């Protein structure tokens, strides 16, 4: 098991965001988190990456407890890739520098090696020509693909994707989703928070529906999205269908 969250609780002041949440992710598994805005999808991903501290419960990565205050957050994050909704590329660096920053500074690779590896990735996702460009010269879809590459070059054990297509124009969503589909083919272990139900159905091995800060229902996409057990899940999906997103 790569990731194991047990009884995780997270509050912001009075707001209980995660409430006794448990979720396991196996190696090579792709888990899609769905649920309304504010259901805790992003917060869970940020807790896993230690950008937020959990109030209670434990999170294990490869069997090691990462919520132990004695664990070094920098070491933990080196094993986890996180991609944000708003890309968060570094605007003062070229695409290539964005990608090679962590390999050179954190993983102590030689600049030449890091560059070669980055170029390989850029070739693969069709962005080699943009290596020397600054992020503001790229479309949203291109920026997001660079952000995914930036997370992947560190060969993380786990890739977290936080609504990575939500900020994109509809016609740019496809290129990012295609890339994620390819990553699944590579066997990358992924947890993705998403509003793209159609995509979750195609790419996820398991869909987890978050409601009220816990996993209310989880299972194969066909079951959770097609024949949900819980009334809340049905309600949520009905609203999604109404909005024309499924």
């Amino acid at each position, binding site marked *: 098991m790569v990731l194991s969250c047990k009884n995780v609780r997270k509050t912001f002041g009075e707001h209980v965001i995660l409430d006794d949440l448990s979720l396991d992710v196996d190696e090579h598994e792709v888990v899609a988190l769905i649920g309304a805005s504010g259901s805790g999808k992003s917060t869970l991903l940020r807790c896993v*990456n230690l950008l937020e501290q959990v109030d209670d419960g434990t999170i294990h990565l490869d069997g090691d407890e990462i919520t132990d205050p004695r664990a070094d957050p*920098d070491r933990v994050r080196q094993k986890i890739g996180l991609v*944000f909704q708003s890309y*968060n590329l*570094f*605007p*003062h660096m070229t695409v290539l520098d964005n990608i090679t920053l*962590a390999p050179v500074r954190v993983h102590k690779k030689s600049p030449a090696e890091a560059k070669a590896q980055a170029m390989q990735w850029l070739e693969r996702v069709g962005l080699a020509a943009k290596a020397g460009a600054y992020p503001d010269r790229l479309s949203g879809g291109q920026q997001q693909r660079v952000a995914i590459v930036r997370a992947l070059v*560190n060969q993380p054990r786990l890739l977290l994707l936080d609504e990575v297509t939500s900020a994109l124009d509809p016609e740019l969503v496809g290129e990012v989703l295609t890339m994620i589909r390819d990553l699944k083919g590579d066997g990358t272990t992924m947890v993705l928070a998403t509003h793209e139900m159609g995509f979750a159905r195609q790419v996820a091995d398991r869909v987890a529906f978050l409601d009220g800060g816990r996993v209310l229902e989880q299972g194969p996409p066909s079951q959770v999205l097609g024949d949900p057990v819980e009334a809340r899940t049905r309600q949520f999906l009905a609203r999604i269908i109404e909005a024309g997103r499924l």
Partner: protein
Amino acid sequence: MTYAPSERRLDRIAYRRRQAIRSVLLAALSTAAVGTLLTVAVTGAPGWERVKTSFFDFPTARKYLPQILDGLWLNLRLLVVCATLAMALGLLVAVLRTLRGPVAFPVRAIATGYTYSFRGLPLIIVIYLFAFGIPGLRLQGIPSVLVLGAAAIIITYGAYLAEVFRAGIESVHPSQIAAARSLGLGYRQTMRHVVLPQAVRRVAPPLLNDTVALQKDVGLISLAGPIDAIRAAQIGVAQDANFTPYVVAGVLFMLLALPLIAVTDWVTLRAARRQNAGS
């Protein structure tokens, strides 16, 4: 199909051209009017002849120009040294103020106390305290008043620049820090590679603006004794009982500032343009 401008378009172009010519003429006319008015007001003043001989006397200006230029060379060197060190000090203090954790508390407290007190203290008083107070201690190895005066300027300006840098650091969006940390970069690496480069770029215009102010304020070193442009002018004034050397020094300071002001404007413009271009 080839495009041929319509009647309507030609008409618009012609109208705009007429309007442009009209505004140029109007601007020339009003400038001439204001200029004449000012000249008449100044040269027609009852005391103009006396002011002219005691402030704008050409022979006196030529007589003291070499000494003042010599002094200005000192100002220029002081400016370079003070600007460099004040920026380094400001950057250091700004970074120290962002440190977290209980161990860093005294460092943070000292940095905060420093920016608060030295932004409030008048530079003149700091120069007096440094240049006359510190030698008064009669310790071994106390540097010259020139060095002490420069230190006063550096420490005072460092406090302003620290606040400018801090504003820049705080203007970098937290999501940038989250992105850097999520890649496994530590706090220092995040500061060095992600936050500071963006912060410094963003505050370049106000930093340069403070450097222009510093350019004038290095002249205050004359209060401590060293013969800079202002002190040289003062000596001339005292010798000939004529204020022209001050005017000469003033004009030289202004000329010295021009390139720096031009660079500041250019950087500001470029920053504004880049901000409008991006998203």
